[in-house]
């Protein structure tokens, strides 16, 4: 029952934006360019979606007694109150954080035996409709609802609602028949004039929301792939929203194609899973009687009590279990361990593409060509986080090797992006690199077995990063589409709300905190501190277990400092100090309420959503249905070189240390930023000159674009040319050569015909004619000669007779 209710609510939230898209794209095309109807419709769809998600979250909590204290305010529609209510509830339940479910359950499976909090039916899965079925192979659209799904739903719909509202203001310039695009030039140097496309923007946003929510709701990995691609194409459409700008088109293409590179890996992963597991579903498939027909992916991979994947001693293959009613005998399905790794890496490759991790990170900064609300929604809060979400969702399938890869990829990414962010001058680019870096943190957290930590950071990051993007959008809007920070400065007087909310975000992402404010063991801090702290703590615990991988702790710690540095650099650059470009400063203004309102709302969440840290409600919600083997960690066999993955205990033990270190790093980063940009004590230009080599390297984004261009783009064009050349020269050449041979042969044939066959006939005719002509000479018409001929003929005849028959 609860499952159905949840499903229905989430499906409403999921499908409403699709309906919105359909209506908006057609209605907008035939409607007025100046109408805001599309925007309101879009906001309505996603807003209703948010309400549905929220109520689903509450119902879910109710159904498994998540909220121990009854709260009248919970059914309040207003978001802040509701979340605040959770927060209170969370406090009451501190200490039970680790008490997640130990195993996944289908709706009809046996009730959980988890002790402290009875989380009976927490995971709901089922099938929406079947795409195709071949024997026992079944591909369908499913849903899979657990706490993570619900939290993601709520987060996505809420942020999307805020951003939709913001965008109504931000995109209002498009409400015209004659929009002048100052960034797009015609060949004669004029700006592009075109009709406004307000409706189209909101239609695309709606389509994106639909895709994103579908991705979250997806009940099988194939369905994830479907929506994975759909969010990709929405991203393409939104980045390339200003189709007239070449840079925007290039960025859109780049984004989609680099994502496709990742999806190529994803597809390989899918193939392996499909071939060896025979199912894509996360959860069990049950028939009408409630019996398990087909075990889900998560149930098929056997793990022993320590959390390691069970392997056949002899072959090293993994014997998959729990295929109950399949035609083949259940024991027949095995998968080589190496392919399990391949599958994991493959799926992770998709995540690398989507979350802009190393080495596929270069598309995200370029994606900032899209309108700023898009950057806020798609390229910071939701879509790019989908990669992280998928890693989290697919966590039970990852083996140690894959996790280590994830951790290192995250580690490299977070450092590299942070270094680039330090020198970027475009306000959105800084935020983009910061996003990549933070996504790296999440990946790192997941990779070092901090399942909760990584996803925790995902949610908090979504709030504060979308906030910061919206703030930058507000700045850009106020400054008439100026994005270069060196031309700003001192804007806090002109746009105080923006500056303030931005500061909230900056503090949040930097992880600043004031220790010991509430009580001795807790700190007062904005959301970022808690989540980043969790990640760093997990990595510390991991490094303790596996000292060879010490970089996985050092790098994120250092980068925490870098993060604080570049974020405060951004803030100081933009809002503090003196105006650097008086013209821009004079004309800039604070944004209207429809834009600042969402800023304020988001800033509240950016600040307080993670209250309570890992004992807080948000973390508990996220980890409500965490994978079974996460809690205890995995103890690697001693001396085998296998990884030891930290459990909650181990992480908790180093929490204090890690938090302190991270805080010190952040504080020092902040201090340096203030020193360099907040004061005039240090000449920044001088430092830049001294480190010009490094600066150039960083400003050129570690030369990845050039590298890829030389390594992949040019060769593929060359190969393409080669293919055409082969077609034209070799295959067509063969055809043409054979045609020529045929023509040649037929020429000879013709000659033969003419010379021999015709020749023979002609010769016959000609010779007859010639004989006649020559005989004509004989036909003198002279009587006497004829007589002579007769005589001669007779004589000759006789002569022949006599010579032939002598005697």
């Amino acid at each position, binding site marked *: 029952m609860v499952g159905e209710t949840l499903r229905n609510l989430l499906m409403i939230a999921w499908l409403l934006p699709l309906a919105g898209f359909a209506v908006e794209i057609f209605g907008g095309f035939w409607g007025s360019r100046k109408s805001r109807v599309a925007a309101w419709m879009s906001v309505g769809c996603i807003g209703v979606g948010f309400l549905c998600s929220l109520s689903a979250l509450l119902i879910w909590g109710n159904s498994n007694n998540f909220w121990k204290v009854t709260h009248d305010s919970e059914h309040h529609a207003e978001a802040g109150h509701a979340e605040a209510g959770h927060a209170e509830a969370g406090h009451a339940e501190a200490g039970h954080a680790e008490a997640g479910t130990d195993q996944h359950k289908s709706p009809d499976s046996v009730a959980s035996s988890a002790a402290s909090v009875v989380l009976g039916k927490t995971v709901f899965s089922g099938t929406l409709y079947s795409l195709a079925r071949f024997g026992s192979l079944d591909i369908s659209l499913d849903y899979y609802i657990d706490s993570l799904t619900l939290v993601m739903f709520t987060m996505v719909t809420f942020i999307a609602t805020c951003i939709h509202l913001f965008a109504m203001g931000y995109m209002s310039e498009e409400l015209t028949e004659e929009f002048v695009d100052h960034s797009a030039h015609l060949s004669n140097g004029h700006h592009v004039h075109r009709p406004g496309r307000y409706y189209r923007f909101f239609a695309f946003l709606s389509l994106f929301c639909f895709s994103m929510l579908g991705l979250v709701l997806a009940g099988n990995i194939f369905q994830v792939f479907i929506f994975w691609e759909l969010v990709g194409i929405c991203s393409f459409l939104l980045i390339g929203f200003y189709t007239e700008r070449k840079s925007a088109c290039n960025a859109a293409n780049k984004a989609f194609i680099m994502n496709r590179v990742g999806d190529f890996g994803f597809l390989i992963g899918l193939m392996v899973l499909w071939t060896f597991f025979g199912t894509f579903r996360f959860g069990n498939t049950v028939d009408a009687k409630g019996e398990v027909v087909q075990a889900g992916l998560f149930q098929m991979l056997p793990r022993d009590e320590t959390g390691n994947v069970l392997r056949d001693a002899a072959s090293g293959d993994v014997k998959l279990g729990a295929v109950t009613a399949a035609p083949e005998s259940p024991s027949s399905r095995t998968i080589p361990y190496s392919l399990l790794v391949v599958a994991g890496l493959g799926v992770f490759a998709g995540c690398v593409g989507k979350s802009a991790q190393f080495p596929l990170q270069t598309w995200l900064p370029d994606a900032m060509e899209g309108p700023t609300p898009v950057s806020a929604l798609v390229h910071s809060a939701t879509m790019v986080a989908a990669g992280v979400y998928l890693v989290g969702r697919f966590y039970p399938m990852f083996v140690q090797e894959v996790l280590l890869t994830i951790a290192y990829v995250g580690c490299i990414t977070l450092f590299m992006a942070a270094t680039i962010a330090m020198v970027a001058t475009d306000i959105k680019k800084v935020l983009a690199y910061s996003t990549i870096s933070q996504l790296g943190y999440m990946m790192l957290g997941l990779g070092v077995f901090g399942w909760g930590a990584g996803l925790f950071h995902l949610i908090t990051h979504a709030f504060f990063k979308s906030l910061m993007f919206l703030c930058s959008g507000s700045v850009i809007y106020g400054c008439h589409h100026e994005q270069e920070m060196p031309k700003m400065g001192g804007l806090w007087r002109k746009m105080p709300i923006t500056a303030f909310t931005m500061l909230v975000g900056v503090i949040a992402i930097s992880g600043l905190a004031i220790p010991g404010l509430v009580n001795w063991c807790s700190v007062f801090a904005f959301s970022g501190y808690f989540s980043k702290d969790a990640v760093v703590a997990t990595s510390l615990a991991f490094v303790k277990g596996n000292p060879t991988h010490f970089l996985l702790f050092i790098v994120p710690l250092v980068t925490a400092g870098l993060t604080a540095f570049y974020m405060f650099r951004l803030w100081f650059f933009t809002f503090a100090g003196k105006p650097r470009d008086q013209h821009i400063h004079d004309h800039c203004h604070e944004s209207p309420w429809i834009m600042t309102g969402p800023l304020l709302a988001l800033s509240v969440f950016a600040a307080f959503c993670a209250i309570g840290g890992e004992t807080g409600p948000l973390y508990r919600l996220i980890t409500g249905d965490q994978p079974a083997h996460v809690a205890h960690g995995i103890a690697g066999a001693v001396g085998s070189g296998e990884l030891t993955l930290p459990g909650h205990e181990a992480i908790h033990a180093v929490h204090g240390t890690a938090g302190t270190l991270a805080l010190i790093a952040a504080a020092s980063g902040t201090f340096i930023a203030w020193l360099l940009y907040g004061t005039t004590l240090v000449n920044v230009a001088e430092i830049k000159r001294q480190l010009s080599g490094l600066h150039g390297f960083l400003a050129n984004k570690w030369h990845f674009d050039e590298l890829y261009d030389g390594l992949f783009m040019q060769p593929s064009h060359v190969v393409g040319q080669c293919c055409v050349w082969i077609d034209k020269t070799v295959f067509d050449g063969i055809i043409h050569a054979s045609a020529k041979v045929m023509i040649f042969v037929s020429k000879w044939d013709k000659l033969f015909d003419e010379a021999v066959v015709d020749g023979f006939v002609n010769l016959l005719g000609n010779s007859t004619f010639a004989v006649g002509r020559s*005989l*004509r*000479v*004989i*036909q*003198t*018409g*002279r*009587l*006497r*000669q004829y*007589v*002579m001929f*007769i*005589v001669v003929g007779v004589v000759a005849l006789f002569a022949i007779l006599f010579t032939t028959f002598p005697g």
Partner: protein
Amino acid sequence: MTADLNSYLFVGAVLFVCGVVCMATKRNGIGVLMGVELVLNGANVNFVAFARYTDLGLDGQVFSLFVIVLAAAEAAVALAIALNFYNNHLTIDVDRANKLKG
């Protein structure tokens, strides 16, 4: 020279050849006709000789009679033709009659 079959045949042969040569050399149409007569006569001599010196009976003589009659008829027609020719060409020279030249 005894009068036996071969002797007659030799005479007939000489007549025949003379007739033929006459036909071949004479330009005068009448001359040609005369050659024809000679040829026919050669044949007649042969017929008669065979009738005389074989047991074939009268056949040879009867045939030679037929030949004589036909020769007369031929002569009549040929003369008529010759006259016609002369009427048309004002000459009897057969070399002028080359309308059938190929």
